[in-house]
């Protein structure tokens, strides 16, 4: 027997082992028709998908849909975007923070001056625009964040839905005593657990005051006793008081919808674009949803809903350098915001963003609740204008696991905001 010493072999073996660790084009068809690539959210509802087909039919252009899963939508879009790959049309968030991460001045076409902007009221003052330039075409009603609640559960317990966090905390023991999970949280999907703290902050963010203070660096998230720290503290207290489901760490948001419809849980903090998921949880039975589920605003101290312009139906036109495709993609935006939009509103039974388009008939009861709450008192999500807030959901996971206290989580998130704000060259940083 021999025992060889082979450093060269070891090095090659290591290199082999290392290798284990690493482990839109124009399509003119002779008539000016082109193929457009559209990166879209997999949660696009059927009426929106139908609009894409109508555009194809009317224009003769082809749309190649690239579906980005709604779970992890931001990460996946950013990852594709970072490779330098560009679609002709991008469906993405209209928030300023989402827009800044696309480096709009460099990568997106300026849509300022398009006719739909003047028909949208004040929408583009808080969304879809940076430095006075409009980059987005927003066709979807904003995502409205609030509390979905089970009407039957509340009626049986003799309670009314809470309108602030004090009432929410007070309702918990009574709902628990009735054998119901007071609030169902879905830490397994990660992103939903940031909604309750964002709702809490609506009270401090009227006229986007708090968001602007953080974005301009006149306040920080980690200031002692700041609204953000208070929001996280209120959340941690709800958890300590047993207000949440036992499987908070593993439950997915689909589970939360099911728990709400079946009455296993009394409340779920979610947004209005999740109505199709709610309907799916009810087996597609709209009547069950209307009879069972209501929607209400909630903040630290007032019955406010929080809104954020959502990704569904918000379109950007990345610069591609291909004149024919750029013309066709602008035609797409004009189609989506033009006369066909009224048909979309009617078919989708959502509320229009253009002043000259009437509300649809036959809107589901729960969506009427959403609109009513929105009209009564809506505040833009405090994080809409702050870049670098993408880590909030991950920090909430650590807060839930007891690894971080509210102050430490706020300090860490402030570091991420600083990192992004400096990179984005925001004034004040």
């Amino acid at each position, binding site marked *: 027997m021999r025992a060889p010493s082979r450093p060269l072999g070891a090095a090659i073996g290591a290199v082999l082992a290392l290798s284990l660790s690493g482990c839109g084009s124009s399509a003119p068809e002779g008539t000016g028709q082109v193929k457009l690539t559209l990166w879209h959210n997999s949660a696009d509802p059927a009426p929106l998908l139908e609009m894409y087909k109508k555009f194809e039919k009317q224009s003769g252009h082809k749309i190649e849909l690239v579906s980005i899963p709604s779970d992890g939508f931001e990460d996946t879009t950013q990852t594709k975007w970072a490779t330098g790959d560009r679609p002709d049309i991008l469906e993405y968030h209209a928030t300023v923070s989402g827009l800044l991460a696309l480096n709009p001045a460099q990568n997106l076409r300026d849509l300022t001056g398009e006719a739909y902007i003047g028909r949208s009221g004040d929408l583009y003052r808080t969304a879809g625009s940076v430095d006075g330039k409009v980059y987005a075409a927003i066709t979807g009603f904003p995502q409205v964040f609030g509390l979905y609640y089970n009407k039957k559960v509340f009626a049986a317990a003799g309670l009314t839905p809470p309108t602030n966090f004090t009432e929410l905390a007070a309702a918990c023991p009574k709902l628990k005593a009735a054998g119901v999970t007071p609030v169902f949280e879905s830490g397994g999907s*990660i992103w939903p657990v940031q909604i309750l703290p964002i709702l809490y902050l609506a009270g401090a963010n009227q006229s986007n005051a708090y968001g602007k203070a953080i974005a301009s660096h006149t306040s920080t998230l980690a200031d002692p006793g700041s609204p953000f720290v208070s929001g996280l503290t209120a959340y941690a207290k709800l958890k300590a008081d047993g207000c949440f489901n036992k499987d908070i*760490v593993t439950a997915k948001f689909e589970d939360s919808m099911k728990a709400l419809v079946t009455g296993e849980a009394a409340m779920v903090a979610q947004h209005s674009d999740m109505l199709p998921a709610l309907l799916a949880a009810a087996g597609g039975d709209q009547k069950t949803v209307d009879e069972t589920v209501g929607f209400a605003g909630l903040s630290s101290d007032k019955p406010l809903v929080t809104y954020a312009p959502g990704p569904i139906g918000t379109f950007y036109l990345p610069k591609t350098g291909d004149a024919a495709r750029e013309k066709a993609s602008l035609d797409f935006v004009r189609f989506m915001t033009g006369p066909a939009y009224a048909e979309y509103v009617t078919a989708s039974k959502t509320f229009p963003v253009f002043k000259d388009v009437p509300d649809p008939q036959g809107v589901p009861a729960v969506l009427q609740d959403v609109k009513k709450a929105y009209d009564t008192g809506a505040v833009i999500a405090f994080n809409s204008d702050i870049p670098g807030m993408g880590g909030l959901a991950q920090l909430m996971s650590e807060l839930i696991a007891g690894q971080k206290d509210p102050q430490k989580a706020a300090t860490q998130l402030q570091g991420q905001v600083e990192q992004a704000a400096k990179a984005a060259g925001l004034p004040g940083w």
Partner: protein
Amino acid sequence: MVMRNRAAWLPWALPAIVLVTVFFVAPFLLNVRFAFSSWTSFRAEITWNGLENVRTLIDQDLLANAVTVTVLYAILCMAIQNTVSLSLALALQRTSGINTVFRSAFFLPTLVSPLAAGYIWRGLLAPDGAVNSFLGIEWAWLGEPSTALVTVAFIDAWKWSGLITLVYIAGLNGIPESLLESATVDGAGPWTRFRRVVFPLLAPALTFNVAVTLVGALSAYDVIAATTGGGPGDHTRALNVVMRQQWGQGFFGSASALGFTVTLLVIATAVPLVWWLRRREVTA
């Protein structure tokens, strides 16, 4: 004589060397600079910023935990997979009809997509899932800090043990029968035969399997992403999970620094490990 051997060896190694150079070494050398750059999605300019990305990751409490989780996970995966696979290989060494069926059965998970495997196991291990129903308990295997990392390592072992078992079986079948017979004649029992003859002669298979399982787990992402997403808290947040999160937030320089950390970790682990394991290799 040595030169002649080397000349004969090179043509056979050339395809592998070319592949590794083109698909690993060259991209690595071309991209390593991004780990030391200010690259973000927020602006077009990319400038050299030294160790700023590492400092940021340390300041945000991300790096130390990610390295610890990654190393722990790699050790767990390596230990579980090699223990299970060596046992299976000893049980299934003889080629027979029934053993072929079992070898195929244990190999099947290797063919399943890691993401699919993760999603299936996440369902099975849910608090109200099939595993808990069978055991008659209620436990969030993937949601409790005490069990999450070990559970994910077991899922990884389930996925890859079939392959590792085949390598051990090949190693076992390469041991001359005559040596074992001689040992038996000399009075060696089964345990002594294994310890003194089988295990030393199995060293090349052990080298390969330990290196592959350890290095594979150091670059873990898919199974973790599909099962825990890095949670609960940051208990399974391995380097590549943090890298994806940084990337998703547009911090490409920090993400590249994490990728570079994985590479350094692999080099720092794999080179000495393979060198040491090969030193103890013997031939019959």
